[in-house]
């Protein structure tokens, strides 16, 4: 069930077929990653970098999913373990554990955070029309954090809303 294989089978409307021009094709691109058995995606334009796991400095009295802070080129970045936050999979830290650093730079919110995930899978190209609303019932993840779902073959990728994800700390504050 490799998502890479799956992604290739996804027909994308109006895709420019010229090799190397994929990145300017219409539609959005999402970086997909795995948390346990589940697949998630984030807008690729918000991805700052992907780095390997390193032990962060603890933040006193913070929730369990905040692993601490690290130094990325002089900025102090909090590290959040999405597996604990979303309660999926097991929070183990191996050599393949990666941290996706997301940035948002809008007038309302300017922030950089790192998210621990099990593995980064692929870049998914999708039209916004392909994103369907997530069913309201169910999951642990707050509904406003989910932008929608994309079907990739027989799999479903949950697209996360970056702003909500990065604002996460304020919402759960006290």
């Amino acid at each position, binding site marked *: 069930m490799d998502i890479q294989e799956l992604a290739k089978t996804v027909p994308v409307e109006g895709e420019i077929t010229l090799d190397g021009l994929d990145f300017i094709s219409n539609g959005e691109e999402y970086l997909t990653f795995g948390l346990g058995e589940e697949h998630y995606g984030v807008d690729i334009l918000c991805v700052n970098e992907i780095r390997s796991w390193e032990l*962060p*400095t*603890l*933040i*006193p*009295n*913070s929730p369990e999913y905040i692993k*601490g*802070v*690290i*130094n990325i080129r*002089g*900025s*102090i*970045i*909090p590290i959040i373990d999405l597996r604990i936050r979303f309660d999926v999979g097991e929070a183990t830290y191996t050599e393949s554990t990666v941290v996706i650093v997301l940035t948002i730079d809008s007038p309302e919110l*300017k*922030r*950089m*955070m790192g998210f621990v995930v099990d593995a980064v899978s692929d870049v998914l190209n999708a039209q916004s029309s392909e994103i369907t609303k997530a069913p309201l019932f169910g999951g642990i993840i707050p509904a406003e954090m989910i932008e929608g779902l994309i079907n990739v073959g027989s799999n479903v990728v949950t697209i996360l809303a970056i702003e909500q994800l990065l604002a996460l*700390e*304020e919402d759960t*504050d006290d």
Partner: protein
Amino acid sequence: MAIDLEQFYEVFFEESLEGLDAMEQGLLAVSSADEADPEDINTIFRAAHSIKGGSSTFGFTAIAEFTHVLETLLDEARDGTRTLDTGAIDLLLQSSDCLRAMINALQAGNAIDTSASAPLVAAFEIMLASPNNSNDNTSVPAGPSKPATTSELSSNTHLDIVAASVDNLLSDGGDSNIDYPDDSGSTQWRISFKPEAQILLSGNEPLRLFRELAAMGELRTEANISNIPAFDQLTCDECYISWTLWLTADVSREDILEVFDWVIDECMLTIDLANTETVEQEKFVPLAAERSQPPAPEQPKPAAVPTAAPEKAIAAKKASESTAGSASIRVGIDKVDSLINLIGELVITQSMLSELGSNFDMDKLERLNSGLEQLQQNTRELQESVMRIRMLPISFAFNRFPRMIRDLSAQIGKKVELKLSGENTELDKTVMEQISDPMVHLVRNAIDHGMELPEKRLAAGKSETGTICLNAFHRGGSIVIEIIDDGNGLDAQLLYNKAVEKGIITAATELTEQEIFALIFAPGFSTAAVVSDISGRGVGMDVVRRNISALGGRIEIESKLGRGSTFRIHLPLTLAILDGQLVRVGSQVYVVPLVGIVESLQIKKELVNKVSGNMTLYRLREDNVPIIPIHQEFAIEADNTRLEDGLLVVVEGEGQKIGLLVDDLLSQQQVVIKSLKSNYKNIDGISGATILGDGSVSMILDIPGLIRRVSDRKSKQKKPAAQHHAA
């Protein structure tokens, strides 16, 4: 050649505001001295003059026109034909406020509202019209034309009389045969302009002048290049050309003179009518010597009826003042020079090290080490120099107080004298900007609440005039600002009763005097019987304390009833860098600000006491210091959780001491403070983070925050009703 003048606006605003400050100080000096120091008056005059010149160059006519009237009065004062009495000084002070408001409006990109200046202009005219204390006119060497000028000006408000520039007013007599034509109808003027060679060096560009002339009407120029030396003697920044210009325009001689206002000291200028025979050849105007008769009356003045409440207009104007902060600092050249020297040294060290590195063997290890030491030294010095650039003497903040106290004490009928000391103590610019408002608040409070009325002071056996001292000095890594008054002091009993009455504390609460004084910082607390517009609404002191602690500082109060109070503000010198002691707890390294550390010691078992349930106290000489194990406080793992062998770092904040239990003391070093809030949020007990030499992140402990946390918890347990600072 088009120069974008806009790029100089900011400089003009800054210089003008500085000029206004200088003017205000000068005025206050004049008003407090028995006999006006001519130097003070000159300072005031110069400030007004350069604002006028600048504003007319940049086309801010409203300011130029207003300043001109002001200048006229000052000019008389400078010549000794008028002494500046209280009325005049008040008027001038109000005008400086008005000008400041105008400049602020321009800075914010708004149009100038002349409604505030018009009544002042009118008041000036009335004052100018009444030669209040003119000396015997003829005895004034400065010029027999003076009285005429004065009266003429006063009846002639159209501000084009700016043209009768100060320099003209400063006339030396004589030369009364110049023709001053009426400015109706086109006239052809012949202007002979022979600048001094250095004119370009002073930033004056003849082309700009000509462009201004060309804007008035038809301009024909003729350049005389006969003085240009041979090419090998030519210096590119000197001006060898002189011009003859013919201007056909409907303007008066003064209008033309105004164009040359700024260069008049640096050129030989002749202006005469080309179409009359009264041409006076070779009439030189060196150094402010062009004499003029009063300008012909122009348009009758726009009816500026003196309004009764010019002050109100100013107040309104002030309220709308924008706080558009300019983002530049003026730096002394010595500071820049020392930076350049340091960079030079750094470059030498760097090249030495890279040479060493490209060809290294173990024999050179010692040289490498010494090179690295040198690098460390250079870096440190460089860091200090860069920090010094941001440092300004605190007089920038102090200077607003003389004026404020003068106005305030007059308003409420108290006699107050201000003493400043330590004005040269340097402080980070950001800290200074943020501390000014709290200081203003404290000084206002001191005058309004602290100072007694003169009768009361006499009755209490004190001198009639109260004293407020502003004092600043460095202590360790921080700066201390004291605001001392010799007024009535704080009445602890009254404060206590008031606090009980307002429900801030319960009646049974027992507080030390220090704690009672601290009540005045509680939100909503005011002891003033009457709410005045100066203070008494009970907002403010809490803001003062909040602002100060936001800067990482603290405030202390000392007070003796009937003798006066001292408010002492401790502030870090800079917000960016901090001297810290690194401590280790388990795997984590924390930074304890060195300023807060009282001492570090090994715990002696017999000095540990348990009290009131779960409080652990350590006997430190006479004090009992609560022990706070960091691992418990932060819920982390530590090597050593037993008190017996632990290391205790005793820290102090907000007048209280606590002991932090740590595993190990590491090095002391300077750390650069990084905010956690930019990507996360503020954390209780942590004031920020820093990056250590190995690239790892370390948390900086917020000592006052930790103490508050602990004492909040303590008071919650002990007296649940009294948690007045639970946020």
